[in-house]
């Protein structure tokens, strides 16, 4: 105890111990908040269920509507397009967690919970870290369900179990990084509705101007360049490589992230986490509900 004065507790209740401080308190507080958010997810299963419908629809629609028309690796084979497509859908799905994180945090602001948390002697980043961790758990569950659906429509990972896990690990990391963007949006817009739309709108250009759904070679030059350097593309490409989903005569574009997608994916995701976590935590500290 570093403090000078401890009074008798007024109501016979406990006195708040001085926190352990540092990383251990930070981890502990984050886990408490994560637990709270996971309980909420269990009690509002609609959110998880609706979160699954859209990617499943995309798997089916893209596989059967576009498959056969889109030329990948020199052939327009529906089966090959399905293989190629899945990593893209997985990646798009994990980034959609952004909207959930944003809406959740905006709702906490709106309802005065952020004020309560900020008046407690807890670690400053814990409310946001707890939220993003809970979202990561939800994203992981979503990926499992989606992988099963993908298997049903004929998708396979060809490079063994470990590489497959590594692929999903990169996807999860990307999703986690994006929830920090969502957290910042949630703290900025203040209403859950705005956070949901604000969290989604920019994801469409981001995920479509990429190598997720079609190869970049057929895009106009400047779009192709954006697509190849898009952080989102790096993870898609990395997952494809780790799943063995690139068509046999596919030639990767010359852009560095496309040549080294696994490394690029890790670097991009870490960069997003560092930048947006810093901004979001700073915003949280001065948040006003």
């Amino acid at each position, binding site marked *: 105890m570093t403090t000078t004065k401890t009074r008798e507790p007024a109501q016979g209740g406990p006195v*708040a111990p001085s926190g352990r401080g540092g990383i251990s308190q930070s981890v502990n507080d984050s886990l*408490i908040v994560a637990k709270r958010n996971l309980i909420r997810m269990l009690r509002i299963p609609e959110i998880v269920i609706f979160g699954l419908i859209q990617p499943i629809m995309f798997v089916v629609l893209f596989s059967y509507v576009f498959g056969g028309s889109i030329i990948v690796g020199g052939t327009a084979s529906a089966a090959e397009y399905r293989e190629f497509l899945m990593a893209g859908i997985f990646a798009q799905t994990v980034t959609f967690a952004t909207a959930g994180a944003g809406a959740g945090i905006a709702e906490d602001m709106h309802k005065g919970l952020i004020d309560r948390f900020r008046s407690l002697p807890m670690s400053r980043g814990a409310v946001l870290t707890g939220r993003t961790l809970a979202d990561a758990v939800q994203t992981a569950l979503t990926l499992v369900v989606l992988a099963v659906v993908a298997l049903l429509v004929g998708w396979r990972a060809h490079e063994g179990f470990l590489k497959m896990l590594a692929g999903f690990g990169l996807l999860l990391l990307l999703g986690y990084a994006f929830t920090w963007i969502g957290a910042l949006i949630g703290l900025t817009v203040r209403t859950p509705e705005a956070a949901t739309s604000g969290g989604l709108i920019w994801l469409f250009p981001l995920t479509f101007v990429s190598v997720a759904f079609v190869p970049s070679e057929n895009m106009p030059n400047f779009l192709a360049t954006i697509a190849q350097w898009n952080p989102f593309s790096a993870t898609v490409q990395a997952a494809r490589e780790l799943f063995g989903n690139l068509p046999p005569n596919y030639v990767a574009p010359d852009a560095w992230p496309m040549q080294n997608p696994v490394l690029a994916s890790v670097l991009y995701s870490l960069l997003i986490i560092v930048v947006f976590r810093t901004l979001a935590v700073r915003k949280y500290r001065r948040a006003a509900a």
Partner: protein
Amino acid sequence: MPGAIYAEGLVKNFGDVRALDGVDLDVPEGTVLGLLGPNGAGKTTTVRVLTTLLTPDQGKASVAGIDVLRHPNEVRRRIGLSGQFAAVDEYLTGRENLQMVGQLYQLKAKDARRRADELLERFNLADAADRTAKTYSGGMRRRLDLAAALVVSPPVMFMDEPTTGLDPRNRQALWEVIQELVAGGTTLLLTTQYLEEADHLADDICVVDHGRVIARGTSDQLKAQTGGERVEVVVRERERIGTAEELLRAHAVDGGEVAVEQHTRRLTVPVAGGAKLLAEVIRDLDGRGIEIDDIGLRRPTLDDVFISLTGHAAEEDTADGDDEDGGQSENSENSENSKKKAGAAAKAGKK
């Protein structure tokens, strides 16, 4: 030696809006200060500064003897905050809410659980402990919110409009809880727009308007400052109002006017002389054969105090504060604005 809550020259601007314009407070340990004022007066902003949620532009503050600006986390260990709307997670049960808050106050899981049970019992929520807060009534949510603020028995409590939006029965119940709490030695700062509430709960009252404390003292002192007793008469027959008015004018304190409300047949006159004078008035009315429905000696209420201090009634601009959220009242009409401005100001500050 400064009191348990101390503030000196607090100033806070949100863009062009000066929310706090030099607020000074000094609340002795174990007492209740009522911060009384209309919407937008600066009550909530003051609470937010004292509870470490907002950094003032100028001024200093301490809570439980600890500097709010320099050691915010030490302050947080010693305060409980119950805000304008019940800040509970509605998808968690009552018990889960309290356990979570306890653990975030850094109690061990076991202690947090035990304390949650105690509080649920004490706040009459034991039967609802395992239901989600979503199913609670407004009064129950307020009680849960208050319980959350008391998880560590903080020596200093802040309650921002604790009864806004509650029905009279729940308000009464909450008052009892607050009185019990104060009897236990807690120092309390309470904001309210209800004059009756400040009168009922607070030892001292600070009247705030436009970010300044415009008057302070006990409820009796403030009333004495405003001065003036009045006699109020309701006559039975409308046609006798004129006669009654004439008669009352003779009893008015120097220069006092008789106020007449035709439709309620009510006449009010400022007087001096208390009960003795009241008896005289009754005799006079009787002598003239004027029948009356009601008569009384009225001492000034805090409402009168407020009107005489600010020139407007305390609750006149709260019409939109009574929304279904239970009144996120203060600043509700300009909060969006001031937030945006606050954001802009923060950005400008960074450059």
